[in-house]
């Protein structure tokens, strides 16, 4: 038997997925008396709620209807700040803002009842546009700043200066399973909520606050989600809490499943950013000073925006040491749905911005971007301190790029591109690379903790539970591998079970790529605790020192004498040795002063590099990605199959953000792209036909779980290579106009950029 870790193992639900037997919330047998719920959404971007009349809806048989006034507890589900109502109270703040909710015996009856809710609005002027809201001073939270040194002096003293502006759009998560929760009232005001949530504890707190219950009275459970990507962190709490509020009033179970259109309209997305920058540098491209302002469109409330902007500012350095920096974050309030967590959590916007700076400097100097980047790479002291004060101790920046070059032969690739372009006037190719350095740990130190619960039964089978949630990313199989490895038993002896606030309390969200780092370590600690006790039993049995007891091959051995793992477990039980343990882990070494944006927020960095080749149709603006070579850094990968799946999936999702996915609002502030017919995520043909992933396979320098590294988010930013490659294709066009491209690079934006490059000014 090989070890259970560092080997490819399939997703633990793969067979259930392909057979259709994997149970998602909407597939659960419906409890007797279940009511189905529907939301009443504001049709106005900003309006005073003059009156809400629920009487017509309530007059229907079996219908329960609620508005803000029906909340017995507190109408506030803010995850970071306060005053973020569950149901709009006083004022509705965006088109799609939930104002009321109804529940009825059938889904059709619920939708009919929702249509009968009468809301009288007094329409107020709304801020729909980031620029206008920025100018108006509308903010959801105070500005942030990360930086050091005298930026003004550095800019003034630099031989060369450039400035610019770049924008990137939002992104809908488009998890295939929409937001859903089923709330089941129990005895004595208890509430059990099945929620498709990445953050069961926050859903628990949200439900308890809204219902005025102690946290202990609310249990939130989730076996699996049909995708989440950050969209089911704070946003799932809204759905869970509304279901629970309706269930509380109905005294019956209530299911709230958002239809796709409502899901897209009423729940938050990735933040669009506008970045303005000014850089001072020398003839080698080495930056002396960099001033960047990140204006984030946060939507109507703060939600997680302060943390998102904080991560953006802490990733705007990417791989580069910049002596004097000022990265300012402006958290702009608009009357659109509140933006929220999305894979990368601000880092993609931060990295995209600095890569534009690199690209512009490189073009200004007539150098390859790789040369300019290398002049600025983090290196030996004193060039190893980030603007927020963390020392870069474990850099694989140059190693990742070298690995990429070894696998892809960038010079030869570039020659091929140039040769193609020399004979192709309409279809033009571009090639670009993208390095990343991504900090792993929640910026908020407190969240970097996890708990696990492990039971060994007397037949040697193992029940595993932890605070992490399974959204498809393969967390459950990875943590099970860690536990199986600790006990030296086959993976299929470990059963994973639904995440529940009743089993492991006070958990952090499964977010920030931290799922296996935190929960894997907590589970390992619990498993080691039990293993230590079992080793004691086995040592006594064999009359050998405990240090000589080995757990491997499904056996507990000393020399050539052994017991099966099950026999050893049974023996421990007979001797009244406990076979259950909790494990608790907190990430060491980290600290961060949020007010000053200073400290060591990240336990370690993960690195990576990618190169992408694109072809641009200069007559239509259409783009096709032809090839991507990706170097991923997963440390000592716990499961290469899962990690490669995460890398490929994140890369393609990042491509979507930067190319085909575009959110559009109409003039009244209503989202116009409310379904897959209008909001286009990548399809199978959009994936580069040549897509190779290479893992660095270097143990983490820090003592993470079996020296692995986080994988969920970082590769999304490698897709910036695709967007830079489009810019490269533009730059290669005959013409001396600017290369200006915002994201997403839709055919419309690309065609306009082609015209601008060719003519020196925008036409389309």
């Amino acid at each position, binding site marked *: 038997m090989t070890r259970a870790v560092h080997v490819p193992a399939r*997703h633990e*639900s*793969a067979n*259930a*997925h*392909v*057979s*259709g037997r994997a*149970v998602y919330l*909407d597939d659960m047998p419906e409890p007797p008396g279940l009511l189905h719920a529907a939301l009443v959404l504001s049709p106005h971007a900003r309006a005073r709620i003059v009156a809400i009349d629920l009487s017509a809806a309530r007059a229907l048989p079996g219908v329960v209807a609620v508005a803000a006034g029906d909340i017995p507890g507190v109408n506030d589900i803010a995850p970071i700040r306060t005053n973020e109502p569950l149901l709009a109270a006083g004022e509705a703040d965006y088109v799609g803002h939930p104002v009321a909710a109804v529940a009825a015996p059938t889904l059709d009856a619920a*939708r009919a009842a929702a249509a009968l809710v009468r809301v009288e609005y007094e329409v107020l002027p709304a801020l729909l546009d980031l620029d206008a809201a920025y100018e108006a001073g509308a903010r959801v939270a105070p500005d942030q700043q990360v930086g050091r040194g005298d930026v003004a002096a550095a800019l003034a003293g630099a031989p060369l200066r450039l400035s610019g502006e770049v924008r990137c759009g939002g992104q809908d998560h488009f*998890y*295939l*399973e*929409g937001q859903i929760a089923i709330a089941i009232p129990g005895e004595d005001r208890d509430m059990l909520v099945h929620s498709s949530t990445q953050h069961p504890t926050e859903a628990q707190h949200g439900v308890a606050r809204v219902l005025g219950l102690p946290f202990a009275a609310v249990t939130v459970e989730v076996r*699996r*989600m*049909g*995708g*989440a990507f950050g969209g089911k962190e704070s946003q799932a709490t809204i759905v869970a809490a509304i279901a629970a509020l309706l269930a509380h009033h109905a005294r019956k179970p209530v299911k709230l499943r958002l239809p*796709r*259109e409502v899901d897209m309209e009423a729940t938050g997305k990735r933040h669009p950013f506008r970045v303005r920058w000014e850089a001072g540098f020398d003839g080698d491209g080495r930056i002396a000073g960099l001033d960047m302002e990140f204006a984030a469109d946060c939507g109507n409330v703060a939600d997680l925006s302060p943390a998102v902007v904080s991560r953006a500012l802490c990733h705007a350095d990417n791989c580069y040491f910049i002596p004097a920096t000022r990265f300012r974050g402006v958290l702009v309030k608009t009357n659109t749905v509140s933006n929220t967590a999305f894979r990368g959590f601000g880092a993609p916007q931060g990295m995209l911005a600095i890569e534009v700076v690199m690209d512009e400097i490189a073009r200004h100097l007539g150098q390859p971007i790789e040369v300019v980047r290398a002049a600025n790479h983090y290196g030996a002291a004193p060039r190893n301190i980030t603007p927020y004060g963390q020392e870069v101790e474990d850099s694989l920046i140059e190693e990742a790029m070298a690995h990429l070059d070894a696998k892809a032969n960038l010079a030869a690739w570039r020659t091929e591109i140039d040769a193609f372009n020399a004979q192709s*006037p*309409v*279809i033009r190719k571009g090639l670009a690379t993208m390095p990343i350095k991504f900090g792993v740990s929640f910026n908020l130190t407190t969240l970097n903790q996890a708990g696990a619960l492990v039971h060994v039964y007397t037949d040697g089978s193992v029940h595993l539970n932890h605070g992490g949630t399974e*959204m*498809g990313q393969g967390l459950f199989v990875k943590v099970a591998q860690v536990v199986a490895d600790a006990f030296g038993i086959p993976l299929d002896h470990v059963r994973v079970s639904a995440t529940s606030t009743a089993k492991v309390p006070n958990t952090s969200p499964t977010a920030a790529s931290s799922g296996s780092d935190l929960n894997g370590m907590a589970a390992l600690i619990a498993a080691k605790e039990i293993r230590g006790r079992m080793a004691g039993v086995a040592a006594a049995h064999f009359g050998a020192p405990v240090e000589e007891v080995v757990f491997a091959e499904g056996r507990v051995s000393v020399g050539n004498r052994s017991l099966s793992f099950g026999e050893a477990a049974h023996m421990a039980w007979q001797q009244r040795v406990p076979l259950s343990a909790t494990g608790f882990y907190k990430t060491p070494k980290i600290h961060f002063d949020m007010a000053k944006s200073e400290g060591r927020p990240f336990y370690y960095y993960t690195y990576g590099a990618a190169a992408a080749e694109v*072809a641009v*149709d200069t*007559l*239509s603006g259409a783009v*096709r990605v*032809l090839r991507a070579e990706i170097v991923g850094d997963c440390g000592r990968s716990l499961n290469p*199959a899962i990690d490669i*799946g995460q890398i*490929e*999936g994140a890369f*393609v*999702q990042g491509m979507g953000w930067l190319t*085909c996915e575009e959110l*559009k609002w109409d003039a009244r502030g209503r989202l*116009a*792209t409310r*379904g*897959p*017919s*209008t909001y*286009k*995520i*990548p*399809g*199978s*043909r*959009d994936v580069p*036909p040549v*897509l190779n992933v290479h893992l660095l396979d270097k143990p983490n320098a820090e003592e993470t779980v079996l020296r692995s590294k986080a994988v969920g988010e970082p590769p999304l930013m490698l897709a910036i290579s695709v967007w830079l490659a489009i810019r490269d294709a533009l730059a290669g066009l005959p013409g001396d106009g600017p290369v200006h491209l915002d994201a997403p690079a839709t*055919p*419309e934006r690309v*065609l306009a950029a082609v015209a601008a490059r060719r003519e020196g000014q925008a036409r*389309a």
Partner: protein
Amino acid sequence: MAIAFVLNGERIEVADAAPSMTVLDFLRTRRRLTGTKEGCAEGDCGACTIALGRQESGAARWQVANSCILLLSQIDGSEVKTVEGLAGPSGLHPVQTVLAESDGTQCGFCTPGIVMSLYALAQERAGETPVSDADIHEALAGNLCRCTGYRPIVDAARALCAAPPVAEPESVPPVAGTRIAGQGELHLVPQTLAELVALRSAYPDAVLIAGATDLGLIPAKKRQGFPLAISTRRVTELKRMGWEGDQLVLGAAVTYADGLETVEAAFPAFGALIRRIGSRQIRTMGTFGGNLGTASPVGDTLPVLLALDAEVELAGPAGVRRMKVAEFLTGYRQTALARDEVIAALRLPRLAEGEELFAWKLSRRFDQDISTLLGAFRVRVDGGRMAALAAAFGGMADRAKRAPALEALVIGAPWGDIPPGGIEAALDADFAPLSDHRASAAYRQAAAANLVRRLHLATTRPGVLLELEAL
């Protein structure tokens, strides 16, 4: 009559459901077959994909369909297979095993739909020459996955098509009914054109169902049924297809899937375009007549029909009349169809000697996307001059339209170099496009002019690469 069909090998009759209940709702709520998922309820994401075997289709035994916008009355007399129907008593179906072993699932929510698309592809193509990546992408175009990045799914598709087909028992579907009633709704399924015309005259307010890939959104999203509907799907005369003299006749009820091969043989550019209409799931149900009847301003096939100067056959109580498609389209989703008429067929003229047809669709995504803009051109270049041009565009006006100013500018003119600025001016005279969430008016105008430039290059400089997909 009750609705009767074979579901996963079991013959069932449904008497207590509305004919316009969606098949997805039926599967999930009435049969508790919850493997089939709702991801979007608009026939786009493919999580609800099922396999359908229909007597009226001449194509492969199993075709995929979006159960979320498929009405129960549309599957009367058919065979339906869901993800639950694949696994046998001995375990998973090879499609399921291969997908799982390829690490082709992450969150798993799209997986049942992907399994069904791969199943239909493998049953159709197994044992044939190696299946190209383009064919695999075409088969997967109607299935969105947000987790994997598709690479392992495409790998699974390759492996499956390389394996021999999996034998499966024949089954005899029940005889389809002509009147399907339930829950106060009545859906009529005539078998002859005479019956159809008689019903249309008798019930001019009935909803005419010709695939329901558009209408299906009403029960799916608005959750409203059709109390009275007439289906064209079993009308023999409306299923006809073939050359009649110099015209290719396509019955109005011919689905894209069934008509593709014939159309592609006659007009390769039209065939390539049809492969980009919706997805396989949509093309299983969508019909040429339905597309024309909808008269959408984009209207995927409509610019091609206009460029070909095609005719439409309209059948009514007074008999059959013919009309140019250009006259048939009268405005935004408006046609010249009388209340008591139905579209019977399309008639596509054969290309004249020296003529070529080009059609280009511009969209945000290559597959399964509504056109931002679509241009179709029937051209004959002779002696360096544009001897003949019929140019039509979708997405540029309230309806698909010919471009008379452009045609006037170009016909007879030297075609060696196109007049700079002249194209823009002509298109400005022809069209005043709108800005919407797909694109701005400025993009549409610029891109339309560039389609003419593309046409110029395609007809004068054959060596110049023009298609991204050719790479």
